[in-house]
């Protein structure tokens, strides 16, 4: 869930425009000279995002063809969404049936599917806050979704009073699944989205704020990284053409981070974030930054 990061979210929103909204952005190109750096960034994103078909334009000066990568990514997003809806249903069923332990077990694995594609959800209007807001992210009256149930399960140790929340959560998940079908995905979204996923980890998972009652932050951590890695894998051929050294560095740093995470695996899942020592958290954070820095230069494949 992200609220404080206005600019990247804006970029994503711009690149995720549904067909038809693109014309409006042209007006942004005029005037508004005050902030040329930001401005040009937004324009680029807006142009790149003016529709699913505009991939060639997104490349600007390059003739790179991202069609395959984009098709593959859409497939991935839909797969993840399907799994997300299915497992969320299992989770909400358990909540409604008052099966506390089962609900607790199903909670984190279900969320992983969401965390892998989070930037897409974030760009789709209110869906992200509805599904993933933490307490205080939104007005108390509007708070719903996973973390509200998380609080009930772990802090209050009950499923009581959660039936409605569970029903709405499932509906929101289904709505997400419906919406991703039409979401405009372009090369720019892939590039920004990958960094975005790691920024998610940096700003809320590393600190243990995301899962403050269940301490299942490592599931989200891993899922965000996997989501970013998927994008990297899809863009790799293009990147290898454009900047092989960068491609290699990113690959090495993914491996390094994955190795850092490995010791925290426990059975099918991950240990509680509470068991990590401060220096272990710091190492994870440093390895993440070490990866995110070169990853943020993947934009080089977009030309310009």
């Amino acid at each position, binding site marked *: 869930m992200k609220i404080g990061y206005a600019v990247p979210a804006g970029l994503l929103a711009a690149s995720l425009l549904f067909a038809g909204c693109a014309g409006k952005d042209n007006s942004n190109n005029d005037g508004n000279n005050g902030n040329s750096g930001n401005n040009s960034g937004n324009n680029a994103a807006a142009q790149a995002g003016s529709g699913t078909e505009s991939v060639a334009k997104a490349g600007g000066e390059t003739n790179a063809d991202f069609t395959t990568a984009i098709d593959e990514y859409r497939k991935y997003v839909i797969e993840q969404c399907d799994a997300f809806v299915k497992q969320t249903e299992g989770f909400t069923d358990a909540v409604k049936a008052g099966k506390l332990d089962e609900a607790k077990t199903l909670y984190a694995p279900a969320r992983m599917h969401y965390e892998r594609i989070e930037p897409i959800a974030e760009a789709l209007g209110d869906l992200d806050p509805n599904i993933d807001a933490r307490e205080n992210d939104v007005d108390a009256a509007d708070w719903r979704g996973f973390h509200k149930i998380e609080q009930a399960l772990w802090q209050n140790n009950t499923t009581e009073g959660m039936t409605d929340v569970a029903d709405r959560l499932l509906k929101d998940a289904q709505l997400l699944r419906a919406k991703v079908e039409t979401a405009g995905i372009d090369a720019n979204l892939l590039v920004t989205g990958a960094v975005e996923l790691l920024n998610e980890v940096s700003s809320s998972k590393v600190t243990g704020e995301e899962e403050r009652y269940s301490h299942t932050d490592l599931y989200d951590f891993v899922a965000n990284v996997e989501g970013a890695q998927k994008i990297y894998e899809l863009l790799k051929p293009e990147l290898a053409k454009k900047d092989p050294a960068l491609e290699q560095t990113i690959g090495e740093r993914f491996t390094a981070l994955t190795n850092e995470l490995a010791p925290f695996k426990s059975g099918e899942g991950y240990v509680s974030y509470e068991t990590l020592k401060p220096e272990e958290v710091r190492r994870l954070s440093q390895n993440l930054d070490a*990866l995110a820095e070169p990853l*943020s230069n993947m934009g080089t494949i977009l030309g310009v």
Partner: protein
Amino acid sequence: MNKKDKNSRNKADADHGIPVPETKLFNTKFSRRDMLRLTGASGLGLLLGGGGVGGIMAARQAAGRAVPAAAASGQNEEQADTIPFYGKHQAGILTPAQNFLCFASFDVTTTKVSDLKKLLEDWTAAAAALTSGTMIGTANDKPNLPPTDTGEADGLTPSGCTLTFGAGPALFDSRFGLSGKRPASFTELPAFPGDSLEPQWCGGDLCVQACADDMQVAFHAIRNLARIARGTAVLRWTQEGFQRSGSADPSGGTPRNLLGFKDGTGNPDVTDETQMRNIVWSGSADGPAWMNGGTYLAVRRVRFRIEVWDRSSLSDQEATFGRHRQSGAPIGAGDEFAELNLAAADASGKPVIPPDSHSALAHGDGSVKILRRSYSYSSGMDLKTGQLDAGLVFISFQKDLMKQFVSIQQRLAKNDRLNEYMVHTGSAVFACFPGVREGGYIGELLLEG
């Protein structure tokens, strides 16, 4: 850096007629003609603008420091506050202390020498840009990429920025095959009585001392170097420091530390090459060739017991340092730079300067000297006690840590009156490489020599 912008900014200030009190401007020892000469400005209108005055101050400071004579020869202020990065020795050692410090200690995380080498090469290129006020890298206007320079120093002058690099003893372990290259007497410091070191303020594989007359410029340097290091080295600790600024003390007197005493009076003369060879620079006969022209840095984070100090009488305070607070002169003398006469006794035969005063102990028999280049620090409030967390980032340079720093600090740690008012919380030592020539890189001789 955009020179045009800067001039137009000064011009704009002048055009806006920002009033500068005549008294402030003309109270300085400089005649109006001097000022015209110093700034190279053609009209008094520009001279009286805010920017113009800043320029004069910067130029005067630079001239007073005996850094490049650019200021005195009437070149523009931008050159006047540039301290060359390349040279026989690294800058930031003999360079008179700039207003601000941003000190960073790094741990190297890679195990590949090739990565370490690449880091030092990249740092060298970045340092050359940072100290000359130009942007780092070439991708600063590419819409699809994060800018290579983080931008907060865009349009600022170099502000006398110096970057001084060093390697800690830990770098000479087995990781990079450098263990054979560690200078014999270069080890972590021994424990001193009274030390209260906290691991988060100690050690490191590499250090960067960034100094500048502008805090944003100094911070920008460390931030960008840390960014460049990502994946190869990580920050271990950082500490910012300050002293009175050049503009607050146009006469350029010895700065006072946070205990109110002039600090630096007894330092050796940095313009005396023989002394610097004897005290600071490691020579060809002193150790490994890769350190020829380098020096060793000791940094101690010393927290003051400010509240306790503030409750002690003036005479106690002066006896603690062995100097007068107001003038900085040795007790019994009137001139700040008067000799420390440790033999002087009063009528009853008692030494005038207490033998356990800081100056007396640090001076010893006067045969062992170091070059101190410390800054004050203030790191907010101690949440446990509600007291200020403030003190001194003690930094000294010497050609031999054991013979110089350690021997003095052993005397101090045992008996110094000052110990009642401070506690050493952080400690590290670094071998500061010799200077870099253009085309080379920092630490080149260590890795390839």
